[in-house]
């Protein structure tokens, strides 16, 4: 087998890989959206004064955080059907990624809320704000900029973990590259291209997150070193 990088072959398979990239971006986007929402639900569960729910949510979060995503994917996709719950590869993948990264985002949110000084709550009380209003206008706007770097990290994190979805048959980029490679008995070009495509998408995403952070902070009158 020829070992040099074959540009003509790379060019030939590029359209196929780009189409699969659309699926990868879609999977990362949907997964992230679900994670953002599930993270909020976990956070609410952790902060409720209802003790049993509170403990339950804490344990669930700890459990999910302490087991690998791949095992969770397999469990949901291959084990749940034995209990009568059958999900398509896409639904299973999105839910599992959402759940898994939801626990991380929950921690990001928690840290951000705790990053707002307690004295802000006191100022709100002294001005007689309701607690809902305190959250909405005073606490959350200050917590958001603190959460942006963490939220950005996990957006890129989810994106880079989407190849795991290939193991349950979601037709994303890595899945497509493996298929192309297997068909032509050449893996050098497809896998190299997968790496390059991930790089090309990850770097702008990271830059965009950093810009967003700066912009939000600036809008709030803060200066960033």
């Amino acid at each position, binding site marked *: 087998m020829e070992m040099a990088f074959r540009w003509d072959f790379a060019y030939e398979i590029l359209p196929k890989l780009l189409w699969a990239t659309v699926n990868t971006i879609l999977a990362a986007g949907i997964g992230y959206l679900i994670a953002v929402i599930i993270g909020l639900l976990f956070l609410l569960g952790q902060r409720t004064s209802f003790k049993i729910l509170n403990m339950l949510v804490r344990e669930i979060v700890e459990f999910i955080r302490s087991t690998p995503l791949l095992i969770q994917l397999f469990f949901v996709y291959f084990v749940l059907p034995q209990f009568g719950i059958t999900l398509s590869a896409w639904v299973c993948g999105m839910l599992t990624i959402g759940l898994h990264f939801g626990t991380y985002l929950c921690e990001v949110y928690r840290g951000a809320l705790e990053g707002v*000084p307690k*004295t*802000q709550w*006191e*100022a709100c*009380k*002294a*001005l*007689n*704000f*309701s*607690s809902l*209003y305190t959250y909405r*206008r*005073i606490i959350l*706007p*200050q917590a958001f900029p603190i959460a942006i770097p963490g939220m950005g990290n996990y957006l890129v994190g989810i994106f880079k973990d989407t190849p795991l979805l290939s193991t349950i048959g979601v037709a994303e980029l890595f899945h497509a590259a493996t298929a192309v490679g297997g068909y032509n008995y050449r893996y050098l070009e497809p896998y190299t291209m997968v790496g390059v495509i991930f790089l090309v998408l990850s770097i702008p995403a990271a830059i965009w997150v950093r810009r967003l952070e700066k912009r939000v902070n600036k809008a*709030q*009158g*803060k*200066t960033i070193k």
Partner: protein
Amino acid sequence: MAQTNEPIVKFSEVTKRYGDLVVLDKLDLEIKKNEMISIIGPSGSGKTTVLRVLMTLEKINSGVIYVDGEPLTHMLSSGELIEANEKYLRERRSKIGMVFQQFNLFPHMTALQNCIEAPMQVLGMNKEAAEERALELLELVGLSDKKDQHPSRLSGGQQQRVAIARALAMRPKVMLLDEITSALDPEVVGEVLNVIRSLNKEYSLTMIMVTHQMGFAREISDRVCFFTEGKILEQGPPEKLLDDPKNERTKQFLHAVLDAN
């Protein structure tokens, strides 16, 4: 200052504990309308706690606090006083305003926004009226030209003056000032004290001030209370308490403070 005899704030056997530590020990304290009170004492004597429980930032363990003739920490339920719920507290708390040692301005809002949020949201004022009032108050504290600045662009003294305007915008009857110059650079302490001076002259406000500024306390207060171990050990008009204290512990404290200066 004109004073009536009816107390606007009354502490009745108020006790506050943190675990085993007794911070307020069956405190009795009456404050008359428009009275200007200074609370002095060593750290850990419970003087800041007096303000914090009055602002309902902390709950008391026993006793009752009355504001304007009605209980603040408790409410009447079928003839008995029970612990107040949040709804009742929100109603009663509106008579009290507080300025903090660390200013606690909202960093994501401009000076003007800091001053109109609560009047609009809590008092239900419309934006024009709230802004008009806020501008008057910013003028009063000498900062109308800084109205569009965020707190991070203001000096400590300026931030504290905005905080005073913000508290005044809620039209409190009682103002609590918690060591409001302690976090400031020495050269800007004067500008904040000047604002308090003019408030004392132009507004009919009851003020309770925890302070280490003995000179200022002497100049402005109607009464000075010396706190130690959660109680008032000695109180009286400033010239009496500060120049001729009766109690040995008060003498010691004043000596220590004057030596430090």
